[in-house]
């Protein structure tokens, strides 16, 4: 009876962050549900206790069911039969367990049969599931598409679709097409309005995760003759209506449990979600932010899995008369894995808390006007969430790849054999830095917060917070890192060269993230040295060397060097 939640006290630490007081207050609105629903909390402590207990269930299911099925699911994979997807048998067992446990529609209001959970416990559940099986975590986590439907659909649509998702029906977001990947403005799937006002969809989509889902959110071109994002709208397709078939399932490197589908729409009846023409510019942006947080959760879960496997093997494997964990070359790798895991997780939950505050306020705004203070708070946290989401997604996805690589390295030759879980983790991790926006696109999303000085302001605010005396030395080093980061930003801004700016963006992005994660992990260590002192010491030293590396590179760079890098004569078409 293992339990991924109880075995990691780090998770309870992040769940119990002081910001939760405000988040619960906003989410429960004076605990107004307490007399209406038996399961609703009566006060803050009660709510936190419920989150803890529910995560305990997820931790148990993850370890005992999902984790146990992972190898079989990876081997068996889903099948496409007569236009439908049949999950691997283990996947179906996982789905059944999570549905029986009532873990669907976790963040939805109680009136739609949801649990009314904030994002923090929800994404923590997603992390736990991903630790067990990253492929399955896709299927389960797609439930958060319902957030977008909740935010933008009308009341009738909400009351028809949300309870179905809470009861366990699955979702997908149908965005990508053969010619519209990172560049979604080129989506061509055709939405036609019939005389009676209803809509039908025609065309195809590619790389759709869980493409045979019960309820789809579909991005389609509703405005004939348009070519850019302003001609796109969001539609809800209900599988009960029929009209969408799965043509094939992709054969992938990893996340085998997650069916990636090519879909064919033939006069598929669909309903408009929200307003016409806002599909890409508003709704998909919201959808993607949620999805990016989901991939960050998946990445942290994979990092944890890689660390667990690496640690267990290193403790067990003996060479030269002792277990290999005693060799500095091995424990150096493990320490860095744990440090990246802890620092990345800290960034991730900080981001989730920012998302929680602004989302809860936005939701309150649906029923009443916000006070000027609340509006200001909403704006502040919305911006923080926007700035932190690409960092949390990008950095954690890179870290889980690095950790999976090191996990195999610790296993030596055995790690290259397919018998060990580390190879599955390695294959599963590879997609995280690609889908829902590559790391390169996370950089694009984040860079304006670099150049505008937003991250710098956040860092300087973090620097104002006091830490325990034993971590003051680390904090001084972090302060020096922030200064180097600011110098590097100033140098790039002063150059006023767009190509050089784009070229160095990734380095600046990483510097910002390294600084933020350093200050967060120092704070964690200051609060709970028993859990985080080692990781703070390891991470800050690692981050410092990264900062030095990037600083050195940027300070010696100028635009005249760019031709050495260009692989074709003109960089842009």
């Amino acid at each position: 009876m293992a339990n991924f939640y109880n075995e990691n006290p780090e998770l309870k630490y992040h769940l119990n962050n002081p910001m939760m007081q405000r988040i619960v207050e906003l989410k429960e609105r004076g605990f107004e549900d307490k007399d209406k629903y038996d399961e609703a909390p009566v006060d803050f402590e009660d709510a936190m206790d419920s989150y803890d207990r529910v995560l305990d269930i997820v931790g148990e299911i993850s370890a005992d069911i999902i984790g146990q099925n992972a190898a079989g699911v990876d081997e068996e994979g889903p099948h496409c039969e007569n236009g439908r997807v049949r999950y691997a048998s283990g996947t179906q067992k996982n789905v059944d367990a999570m549905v029986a446990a009532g873990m669907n529609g976790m963040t939805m209001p109680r009136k739609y049969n949801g649990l009314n959970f904030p994002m923090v416990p929800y994404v923590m559940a997603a992390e736990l599931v991903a630790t067990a099986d990253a492929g399955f975590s896709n299927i389960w986590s797609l439930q958060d598409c319902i957030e977008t439907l909740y935010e933008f659909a009308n009341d009738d649509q909400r009351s028809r679709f949300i309870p179905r998702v809470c009861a366990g029906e699955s979702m997908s977001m149908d965005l990508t097409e053969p010619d519209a990947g990172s560049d979604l403005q080129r989506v061509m799937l055709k939405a036609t309005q019939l005389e009676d006002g209803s809509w039908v969809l025609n065309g195809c989509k590619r790389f759709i995760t869980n493409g045979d889902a019960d309820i789809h959110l579909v991005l389609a071109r509703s405005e004939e003759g348009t070519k850019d994002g302003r001609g796109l709208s969001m539609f809800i397709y209900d599988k009960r209506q029929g009209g969408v078939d799965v043509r094939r399932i992709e054969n992938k490197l990893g996340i085998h449990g997650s069916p990636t589908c090519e879909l064919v729409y033939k006069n598929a009846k669909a309903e408009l979600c929200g307003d016409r023409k806002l599909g890409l510019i508003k709704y998909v942006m919201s959808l993607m932010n949620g999805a990016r947080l989901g991939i960050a959760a998946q990445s942290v879960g994979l990092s944890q899995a890689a660390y667990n496997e690496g640690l267990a093997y290193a403790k067990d494997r003996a060479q030269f008369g002792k277990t290999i964990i005693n060799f500095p070359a091995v424990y150096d790798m493990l320490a860095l894995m744990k440090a990246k895991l802890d620092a990345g997780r800290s960034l991730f939950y900080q981001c989730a808390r920012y998302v929680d505050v602004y989302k809860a306020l936005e939701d309150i705004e649906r029923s009443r006007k916000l006070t000027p203070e609340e509006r200001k708070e909403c704006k502040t946290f919305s911006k923080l969430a926007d700035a932190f989401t690409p960092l949390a997604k990008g950095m954690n996805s890179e870290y889980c790849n690095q950790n999976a690589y090191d996990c195999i390295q610790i296993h030596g030759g055995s790690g290259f054999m397919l018998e060990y879980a580390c190879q599955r983790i390695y294959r599963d991790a590879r997609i995280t830095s690609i889908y829902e926006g590559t790391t390169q696109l996370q950089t694009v999303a984040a860079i304006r917060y670099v150049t505008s000085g937003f991250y710098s302001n956040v860092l300087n605010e973090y620097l104002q917070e006091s830490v325990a005396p034993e971590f003051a030395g680390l904090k001084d080093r972090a302060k020096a890192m922030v200064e180097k980061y600011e110098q590097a930003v100033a140098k790039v801004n002063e150059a006023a060269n767009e190509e050089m700016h784009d070229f160095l963006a990734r380095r600046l992005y990483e510097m910002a993230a390294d600084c933020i994660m350093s200050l967060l992990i120092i704070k964690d260590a200051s609060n709970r040295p028993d859990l985080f002192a080692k990781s703070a010491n390891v991470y800050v030293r690692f981050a410092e060397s990264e900062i030095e590396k990037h600083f050195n590179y940027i300070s010696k760079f100028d635009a005249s060097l760019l031709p050495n890098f260009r692989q074709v004569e003109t960089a842009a078409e």
Partner: protein
Amino acid sequence: MALNIIVLAKQVPDTRNVGPDAMTPEGTINRAALPAVFNPEDLNALEQALRLKDQFPGSTISVVTMGLPKSAEVVRESLFRGADAGYVVTDRCLGGADTLATSYTLSQAIRKIGKFDIILGGRQAIDGDTAQVGPQIAEKLGLTQVTYAEEILSLDEKARKVVIKRHIDGGVETVEAPLPLVVTVNGSAAPCRPRNAKRVMKYKNASVPAERPAEKAEAMAALVAAKPYLNINQWGAADIDADLNQVGKAGSPTNVKEVKNIVFKAKESRVMTGSDADIEGLMVELLNEKIIG
């Protein structure tokens, strides 16, 4: 048709994870070193009950346990998974019961509950491994019993019959039996479903009066008055009209004379080489002895 289902459950020390301090120097179980858990096969029984409830909406599942007040935990765990009510039979005079006294006590509790169509329990508890309590209850209540059940295949409401697949040596057997009856469920049956989030939040404060700390008794009483489902029934010997000579130590003819730690030793040992002939010989022997096959 709505069924009245009773599930018998027991809180047991977790003997599956025995450490070096599991036994006291006196040879008794060191309960402090072993966490108390839901007896595993009782969870299998609960799952069969829940499946009947899924199949016959409106059915109620009542969980009955005998033990210390803290054994209400198995009732809560059952409520979290879909049970409707619970009874904790707890009384000082019930302590030290063997299987005879236990089955008497539980059968009295079942009589007190009165209405039942099917009584389910695990085949045996991992602390005693006797597998006697279920059958003894059936005898005391004059009911049919089906032991080692793996699955309730069907239940015919009109004919009042069940068809049950039971585990037997080397295979399975399908039997038909009339309602009401006692069924003991084998560990090879379907595992129990997980706890449900909403039910956990709803029932997390459910308790028997004896569990409630004195300083919180008043607040809990008020809470239970507002939300009656938070009360788990607590019954003493008098509540189930028990004959005090048949319960606890007084009602237990079994006496533990001595407890010994047994270390298994090989009676004889044989040395075999890795040669093909020796390996083949060993395999033939194991097959003949039906140790493998």
